[in-house]
């Protein structure tokens, strides 16, 4: 599903954010990416999400070389993945339902389908009854569940999460992790960047460790 082949990434200000990183994540696998803050976790995820481009090496997604993707193709590749962020990145002037419906609206689903899918995913993340609320009136855990709902509503084959539990207390974090495992059970590849090692150990999933841009384990 994801393949990194000798990937390096350098910024002007940080000389080497990633150094010669190679790994493969299979379809349907659930893996964690850990390391200190500044170790390059976010950079690595941004390369997969086509937010950044590599300096050297190649990134493959579903067999497609992301180095050779044109600006026009990017939106269509992003529709195959669900992105989850530490700061949720919700539209605070839209209702929960509208936030979740956004990827479907973008993909051109009809009104009926959108309604049905939004209802289904609200049920899955346990937010039934909150569809008319605005994000800022919800708790952090609820907001993150809205973010997760938005990421999975389009039934992506890959979920990328960058510190999804970074702003949540332990109980809510466990709740979020439980959701991820559910998605994995239906064949979705899940790749989570986190510094919360307890979660990783508890899950028993594969762990990739970054240290100063280098992959030291995985």
């Amino acid at each position, binding site marked *: 599903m994801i393949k990194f082949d000798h990937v390096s990434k350098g910024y002007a200000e940080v000389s080497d954010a990633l150094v010669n990183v190679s790994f493969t994540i299979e379809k349907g696998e659930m893996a964690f990416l850990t390391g200190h803050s500044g170790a390059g976790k976010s950079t690595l995820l941004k390369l997969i999400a086509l*937010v950044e481009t590599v300096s050297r090496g190649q990134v493959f997604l579903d067999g497609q070389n992301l180095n050779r993707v044109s600006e026009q193709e990017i939106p269509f590749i992003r529709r195959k993945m669900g992105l989850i962020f530490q700061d949720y*990145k919700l*539209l605070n002037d839209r209702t929960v339902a509208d936030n979740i419906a*956004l990827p479907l*609206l*973008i993909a051109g689903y009809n009104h009926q389908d959108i309604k049905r899918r939004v209802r289904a995913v609200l049920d899955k993340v346990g937010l039934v009854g909150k569809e008319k609320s605005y994000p800022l009136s919800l708790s952090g855990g609820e907001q993150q569940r809205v973010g997760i709902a938005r990421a999975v509503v*389009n039934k992506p084959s890959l979920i990328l999460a960058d510190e999804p539990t970074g702003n949540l207390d332990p109980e809510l974090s466990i709740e979020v992790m439980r959701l991820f495992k559910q998605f994995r059970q239906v064949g979705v590849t899940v790749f989570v960047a986190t510094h919360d090692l307890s979660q990783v150990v508890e899950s028993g999933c594969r762990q990739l460790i970054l240290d100063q841009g280098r992959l030291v384990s995985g």
Partner: protein
Amino acid sequence: MVHLQALLFSLGQQLRTPFSSVLTIAVLSISIALSGLFYLLVKNVTHLTGQLETSNQITLFLGQHVSEQDGERLQRQLEKHRNIQATRLITKAEGLKEFESYSGFGDALKALNSNPLPMVVQVFPRLSLTTQQQLQQLLDELKVIPVVSVAKLDMQWVQRLKAIIVLIERGVLVLASILAFAVIFITGNTIRLELQNRQQEVVIAKLVGATNGFIARPFLYSGFWYGFLAGIFAWLMITGLMKLLQPPIEHLTRLYLGYQEVIFLSVMNSVILLAVSSLLGVVGAWGVLVTQLNRLKPE
């Protein structure tokens, strides 16, 4: 369906920020109304001069010693001319009377021993004679009649007026073009600010797979609404101003030409006004989106 949704949504966005929207629309509609008013001005003046054209006439001043009988004979001859519609003989006495009543210099004339005014034959060419060349030909023909001392075609001032109108028309065209650019730039700048205010939204939409086209759509509609609403307000402004100007204009034209109707924007004009102003709004928005949208990237 999606388009309609986006169209209504963009209108909703404008209603949410009424103050800045009203300011933008006010500036836009003033620009558009100015163009429209200038256009109507030219249209009214050309309509006026169009009527002047039909009032072409040739004045024949007869020699000082030509008798009244000779004058009448000439008039009868001219009446039979194929290019002449009508004639009117003004004898010396009639001329004097007219002069007295119109000029107010009657007393001055009384001081003279004899009537200094020549006999005059007014010649009205057939309406089929429209070009300057045809009229000049007739004039040349009449000039050489022995009893005629001077023949004058009263058209020069009409031509000067027409030349001025052509100049004004050109000027209005230039001004309207400049104002059209102003509308494009004002809309563009407004859309740019909107884009800036909704940067977060644009970035999020891009992250969940929105194409530039999808993101651009509501902004394009926003540009459309600015143009369209400005067009409506411009129309109201133009029509209101013309209503205000109508009585004095009609009074003025009545004095010079008899009754004259003031021309307002026709239905066709109004449709074009709205279409053009909407289009300018869309063009302004489009210009900004093409240059700015690719720059807005997640982080």
